[in-house]
């Protein structure tokens, strides 16, 4: 078989096919890479250097599928067109062996195009980005899946071409039929309300994707594992032929062959051709299960990317969890000069309050705290000793918010590196009037959280951070979540967060001075369990995500 494949390769080498193939592939890839590079970072496209952008560029290699399909067709039909099939069959009397040799040759060629194309993409992108001084992050995310998709899809198209060529021996027809099918028929199907069957057709996945975007979560949720893989591969934009598609194509070509049947010619057994197609379809089905693109993640990714491009937010991470347990994650933007990945660690700000509240409620369960006891019982020196624990948890104690205190914001701007202690923070509001008598109204106050931190420290004898670590983070095994030290904002590997000093909802370039939990979406995205449910908190946190952490200093 090796020498048959070598002979098939020699056949290609001795004509123009390989030259034309190479020129076409390189020209097409360079043109599309150029387009991708030009469009990168604009609306709907990821910035260069991100894993997303690299995936999209790798996906460009997928445009070569029609070319390798045609080369696969030519491998067979050229023999009939130039009547060289007799010579070939005299050397290899078994038609199946000849056809298998051609299929293997086509697969090898497709593999070469896939690898060569990706090397080309890599070379152009890396050299371009290096010249532009943009750091490149090519390994994070799902690049490996995109690579696998490209490596699987292109050889499959080539093998399918051999099958089609064996069924339709007329070269022109055999080349035109699949191209018209991919380029015209499947494009028109949606106009006739037949978009639903597209996913079962050879080229249908990519086009079917966006149209199914209306119900992404339910659609993907039914098959969680495959869905997740699909989401990732989707961004590779490689669409291997759908399983049903090949079968359908082969049926059509069989009919065509019947019409044009000519027994006088040395026939490549249609049965063998069908078997080759069948095997290709089976492999395609397997590959399709992993590489079929899903629309949802991409459209959400697009929304996230577009939103980030419109705002001064430099990096964002999103995790979607649907009731079926399917978790999808996406990131956008850059931090510390690098594109953020799904494992990037963000400071979660006021979400930390919920962790502290959980510790407080645990202590109440353990009868070490009383929900309706006044703060003064645990922190006798506090100027807010009359406010109860329940009121602190529900922002109904009337304690003034230190963030609103005169001088706080201006001081932050003037001395961005200042680290505040608990005493300093409380000093800002200790002498101010209560917003209202305890229990009579509601007002969100960051000071409440600082006071709860003092309570935890008073009862446990250790820092609030220690209690959160041991009682919440360790127990839930949140390995990618940490309580930072004093200089949290400068911790390596954590996406820097900035403070909104002007109160306009946008971050000013002042480093967040407060400790807050640092976490990535990793534990959520990777967990097969539903994300941990927080203790139900009376704290309405609609603004909380924009404000800072629990304001507990030392």
């Amino acid at each position, binding site marked *: 078989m090796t*020498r*048959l494949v*070598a*002979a098939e390769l*020699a*056949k290609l080498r*001795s*004509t*123009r096919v390989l030259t034309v193939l190479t020129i076409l592939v390189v020209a097409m890839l360079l043109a599309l890479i150029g387009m991708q590079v030009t469009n990168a970072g604009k609306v709907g496209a990821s910035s260069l250097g991100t894993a997303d952008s690299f995936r999209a560029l790798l996906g460009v290699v997928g445009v070569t599928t029609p070319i390798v399909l045609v080369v696969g067709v030519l491998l067979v039909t*050229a023999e009939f067109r*130039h*009547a*060289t*099939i*007799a*010579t*070939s*069959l*005299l*050397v*290899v*009397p*078994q038609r199946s062996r000849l056809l298998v040799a051609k299929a293997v040759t086509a697969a090898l060629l497709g593999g070469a195009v896939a690898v060569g194309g990706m090397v080309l993409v890599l070379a152009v992108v890396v050299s371009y980005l290096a010249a532009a001084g943009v750091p490149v992050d090519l390994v994070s995310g799902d690049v490996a899946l995109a690579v696998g998709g490209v490596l699987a899809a292109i050889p499959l198209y080539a093998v399918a071409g051999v099958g089609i060529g064996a069924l339709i021996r007329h070269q022109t027809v055999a080349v035109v039929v699949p191209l018209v099918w991919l380029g015209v028929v499947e494009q028109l199907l949606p106009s006739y309300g037949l978009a639903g069957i597209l996913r079962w057709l050879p080229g249908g996945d990519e086009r079917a994707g966006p149209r199914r975007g209306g119900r992404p979560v339910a659609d993907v949720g039914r098959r969680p594992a495959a869905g997740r893989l699909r989401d990732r591969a989707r961004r590779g934009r490689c669409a291997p032929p759908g399983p049903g598609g090949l079968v359908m194509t082969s049926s059509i070509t069989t009919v065509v062959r019947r019409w044009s049947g000519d*027994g*006088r010619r*040395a026939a490549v057994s249609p049965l063998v051709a069908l078997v080759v197609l069948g095997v290709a379809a089976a492999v395609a089905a397997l590959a399709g299960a992993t590489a079929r693109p899903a629309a949802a993640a991409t459209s959400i990714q697009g929304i996230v990317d577009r939103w980030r491009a419109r705002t001064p937010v430099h990096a964002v991470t999103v995790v979607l969890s649907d009731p079926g347990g399917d978790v999808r994650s996406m990131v956008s933007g850059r931090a510390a000069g690098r594109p953020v990945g799904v494992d990037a660690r963000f400071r979660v700000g006021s979400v930390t309050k919920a962790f502290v509240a959980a510790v407080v409620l645990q202590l109440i369960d353990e009868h070490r705290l009383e929900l309706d006891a006044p703060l003064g019982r645990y922190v006798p020196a506090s100027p807010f000793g009359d406010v109860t624990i329940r009121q602190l948890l529900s922002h109904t104690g009337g304690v003034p918010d230190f963030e609103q205190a005169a001088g706080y914001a201006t001081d932050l701007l003037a001395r961005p590196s200042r680290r505040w202690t608990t005493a300093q923070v409380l000093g800002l509001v200790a002498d101010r009037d209560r917003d209202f008598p305890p229990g009579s109204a509601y007002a969100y106050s960051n000071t409440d959280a600082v006071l709860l931190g003092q309570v935890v420290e008073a009862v446990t004898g250790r820092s609030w951070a220690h209690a959160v670590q041991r009682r919440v983070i360790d127990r839930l095994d949140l390995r990618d979540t940490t309580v930072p030290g004093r200089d949290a904002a400068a911790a390596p590997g954590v996406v820097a967060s900035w403070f909104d000093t002007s109160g306009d909802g946008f971050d000013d370039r002042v480093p967040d001075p407060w400790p807050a939990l640092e976490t990535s979406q990793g534990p959520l995205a990777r967990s097969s369990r539903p994300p941990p449910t927080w203790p139900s908190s009376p704290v309405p946190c609609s603004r909380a995500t924009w404000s800072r952490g629990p304001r507990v200093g030392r």
Partner: protein
Amino acid sequence: MTPALAVHHVTKRFGDVVAVDDLSFEVTGGTVTGFLGPNGAGKSTTLRMLLGLVRPTTGRVLVTGVAYRDLSQPVRTVGAALEATGFHPRRRAVDHLRIAARAAGITPDRVGQVLDDVDLTAAAGRRVGGFSLGMRQRLALATALLGDPQILIADEPTNGLDPQGVHWVRGFLRQLAAQGRTVLVSSHHIAELALTADDVVIIRCGRLVAAGPVDDLTGRGQRVWLRTPDAERLAAALTAEGIAVTRRDGDELVADGPTEDVGRVVARAGIAIYEMHAERLSLEDAFLSMTAPGDPS
């Protein structure tokens, strides 16, 4: 001994058309066999069945006793230059041969040898698209010889060639036969094969008409042509011995009988003879006489 090529009761139908009809013949080793028949007689179909390119509807075709596709080394057993042999026009002659050699597991140096054998060495690097018909025929023969086979099948190798090309092919086939190879060569041009073949197989409309040594078909020594100044007396003497005589103009006559008998009659009659030779039927005459309706032979 297993015949080199054997066709056993083979019938091939294409739809309603019966191309080959219960055909049987064998080709023994070491001979040149002419495969004769008018255009459309089923010659090419039969050859293609022998080579496994067309499947017989019924019957068996064997090469050295087995079906072509079951030969362990097909290209080394039998070489074929088919009329329909095609070449990729963009491919260089040497590449065409290298590809076939590689697929068959034949060493590349054999390519140079066969190119030499068919006088194509000078054109080896040219693309086949620019080849003349004669050059293509020679390239086809070179391809057939790649495996140095003992059996060669050539379908109409002289078709469309100029006289020089025809002469070359004829000499080439004779040379192969002289090396002890078995050659089966088809043609619709009967006279041409008479000069080349030891045996002939004649078919018409897919059916066997005759098969056997050329000499048997042409009836060696059954007719004698004579020139004598005494034609009248000689005719009478021959007729008296029961040998039929046909008078031709002047001093020529033709006697229907073996040379030996005619010679004895001449000697006894003491008649001067200027010229005398056995007149053979041409293969063409034989073919026509055999297929003529009502002819007893």
